[in-house]
């Protein structure tokens, strides 16, 4: 039976090469673009190192404040002060870990003794940062709580920076000058893609080593928070705990005539991935709606095409179908048979589309995955693009495309009158 199928499919494909090429190309093109849409979403949402825990992340990048009296008064939006992170997030009971880090990477001037200096994107973090994000250490280790508390001048660098400084990656324990101050390298990690936007940096230092904390007023400052939950199911509990904190903190802030607006923070990874402006809540439903419309168009247009072609192809085989029916093949068997034949073609085309999509993503990663408001090197690797879900989704879309494109023609071909069919007439 299996051999039969393969032979049959191959025979049909060869019968009319032009039509077969059109069907395969049409399907492949559709799967290619649908998978691009999927991958665009995946690089922002799917887990990969150093953000392997994205499924368990809740982010609070910003904080919004307004004055206590007036509802419609102007709001102040931006990252938080250390005080606000402590009041709202640091001591939460439900999550596994909470990390506090600088909202933006800042450029730092790096140099060793007399060599020409260069700029590296610097992320200022606490020590828990290294437990929330799973960096790949190739040398040394992260800075610990003691170093963070004391504001020690210690730095973790990526391989690229290590090579630029010393021409080697085994550099922990060595000294460098960072913004004209002496620092000691404690660890070296693998380079991080800008797509892992929360973990991204070229070098990382404790935020207590600079004046970052002092650059704040009230609840506003330069810090953001990422919460690592034990499990996604804890999210509602964490949010309600945050809301309790918010109520308490707002009571304290009342004396200063300030009130914090929640805007339903913190956000999960998907919502955070479209969180471009601090003064409004990201519209996840809207994004989903746009994605659905996009995928529907990418499926429907080729489906109509394929459908009309399948129809024509079946019309040519009408006599064959009549013979099969006359020899006792049931309608359902025939329907199933035609659907399976088409599915085989769709799958071949789908694999082609997916391969094209992956090749394209690697070759043109800058064009495809460039994110707004980010600078630095964007890299993609197989672990980011080829998730198990990628293959599952590609298969599902192939299946759906096949179903909507061949169900009607197959139904009509298998439900025609036997006598007419034997005579080669469609009705």
């Amino acid at each position, binding site marked *: 039976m299996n051999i039969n199928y393969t032979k049959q499919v191959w025979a049909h494909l060869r019968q009319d090469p032009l039509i077969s090429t059109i069907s395969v190309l*049409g399907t492949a*093109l559709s799967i290619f673009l649908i998978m691009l849409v999927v991958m665009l979403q995946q690089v922002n949402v799917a887990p990969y190192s150093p953000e392997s825990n994205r499924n368990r992340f809740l982010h609070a990048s910003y904080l919004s404040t307004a004055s206590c009296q007036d509802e419609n008064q102007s709001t102040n939006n931006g990252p938080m002060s250390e005080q606000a992170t402590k009041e709202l997030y640091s001591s939460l009971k439900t999550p596994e870990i909470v990390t506090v880090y600088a909202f933006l990477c800042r450029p730092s001037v790096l140099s060793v003794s007399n060599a020409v*200096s260069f700029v590296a994107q610097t992320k200022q973090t606490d020590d828990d940062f290294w437990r929330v994000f799973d960096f790949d250490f190739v040398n040394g280790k992260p800075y610990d709580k003691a170093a963070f508390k004391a504001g020690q001048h210690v730095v973790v660098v990526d391989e690229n920076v290590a090579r630029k400084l010393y021409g080697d990656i085994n550099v922990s324990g060595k000294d460098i000058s960072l913004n004209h*101050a002496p620092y000691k390298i404690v660890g070296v990690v693998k380079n991080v893609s800008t797509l892992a936007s929360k973990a991204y940096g070229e070098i990382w230092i404790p935020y207590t080593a600079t*004046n970052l904390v002092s650059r704040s007023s009230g609840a506003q400052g330069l810090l953001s928070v990422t919460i690592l939950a034990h499990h996604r199911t804890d999210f509602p509990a964490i949010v309600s705990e945050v809301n309790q904190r918010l109520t308490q903190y707002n009571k304290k802030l009342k004396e200063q005539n300030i009130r914090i607006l929640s805007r339903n923070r913190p956000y999960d990874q998907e919502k955070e991935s479209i969180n471009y402006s601090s003064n409004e809540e990201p519209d996840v439903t809207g994004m989903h709606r746009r994605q659905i419309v996009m995928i529907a*168009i990418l499926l*429907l247009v*080729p489906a109509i095409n394929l459908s009309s072609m399948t129809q*024509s192809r079946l019309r040519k085989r009408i006599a064959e179908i009549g013979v099969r029916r006359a020899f006792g093949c049931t309608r359902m068997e025939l329907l199933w048979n035609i659907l399976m034949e088409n599915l085989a073609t769709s799958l071949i085309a789908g694999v082609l589309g997916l391969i094209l999509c992956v090749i394209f993503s690697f070759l043109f990663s800058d064009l495809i995955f460039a994110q707004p408001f*980010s600078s630095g090197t964007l890299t993609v690797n197989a672990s980011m693009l080829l998730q198990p879900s990628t293959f599952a989704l590609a298969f599902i879309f192939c299946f759906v495309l096949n179903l909507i494109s061949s169900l009607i023609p197959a139904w009509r071909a298998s439900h025609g009158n036997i006598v007419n069919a034997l005579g080669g007439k469609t009705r």
Partner: protein
Amino acid sequence: MTKKLFNQIKNEWRSNLWLMAELLLVSVVMWFIVDYLYVQYSIYNQPRGFDTNHCYHIVMGTLLPSDADYNPSDTVQVNDVEELMDRLKRRPDIDAVSLSYVSFPYNTSNMWQPVTSGKLKRENVFAKNVTPGFFRVFEIKGARGESSDQLSKMLTGKVIMLSNDLYKDNYRVDMTSLIGRKFIAGGDSANISTLAAAYKPIRYSDYMEASESYSYIMPLSRTDISINMELCVRVKEGQDVDFSEKLWKDADKQLRVGNVYISDVESFSDIRKSFQQNDTNQTRNYIFGMGFLMLNIFLGLLGTFWFRTQQRRSELALFKALGATKGNVFVRQIVEGLLLLVIATIPAILIDANIAFAGLNQKMDGMTLTSGRFIITVLITWLLIAIMIVLGNWLPAKKAMGIQPARALHEE
């Protein structure tokens, strides 16, 4: 001929239904995309009012009291920053230097203030506080033809400069006619400035219209100067090949003033790219979508008419036997495809108009449905699909042309 073709289309309505459904769907989606791209392109090509070619943003940093090199006696940061500006000005490759607060184009931060004068009032005007060099760095020109140089000389004392179109839509007045009048920018009514000049409107970015980018310019107060201000420079033409590298070589020695140092040099082409990435991505997505739809039309037409030529072999042979030339056969088949498109376009236009009427598409001048734009975008859409129809029909039509009447009729 057209009437015969109509009959033919009617007789084959069942298989034409597929094609029409596809053409209708593609037509509507294509129009939406063409409309978006048309708006983006038109806005992109409007005058920007500034120029960031050869411009760079220099980020400053300062040593901390805990640092070894820190000079505790150097407490007045203004002096350090101004000295750094002077040193930059003296460099042979630099044309102009400016300091500003949330003012340079493609800015991720901004500040809004109301601007009022008597009855004239506009809320949410972008506030730009700058040093005189700002006009020369970004080549901002006066509405009465003043050069950047002349504008920068006028920015002294308690003055304000306004975008020429600030009150144009509400009060029909050009700012050039109000020069010398008193204005209040911000909530403080005691803070009165004299209008020194009006400048040609500065847009916020390439994809934001002038009507969304009203702005005013005031002198940056010396007391506000710190390393957190934006230090921008314009490099002389032909000098910016390795400007960053050259500047960087001197940054550690000549360009360290007291506790202030240079921590980064960003080119405006990078700032602009990063700021507009969302628009660029959106445009890219739509262009991909358009390519996809056009390819599908091509494949669909190719497939459908390939079958038709096979089916109509004997009819075509008869047509030829009755005296039709090869050209007749070819044209007939192409026109059949185009006629199908014409029929599908009629309901498509109705749907397009409804989408625009409901305001679901891109806004330009605050409108989504204007007759000129609608006609242009519908025509472009029709033409693009028509090209694909002709291309897709080419091969089958060629094949139909080559049918030998004698042989085909004999087979019959």
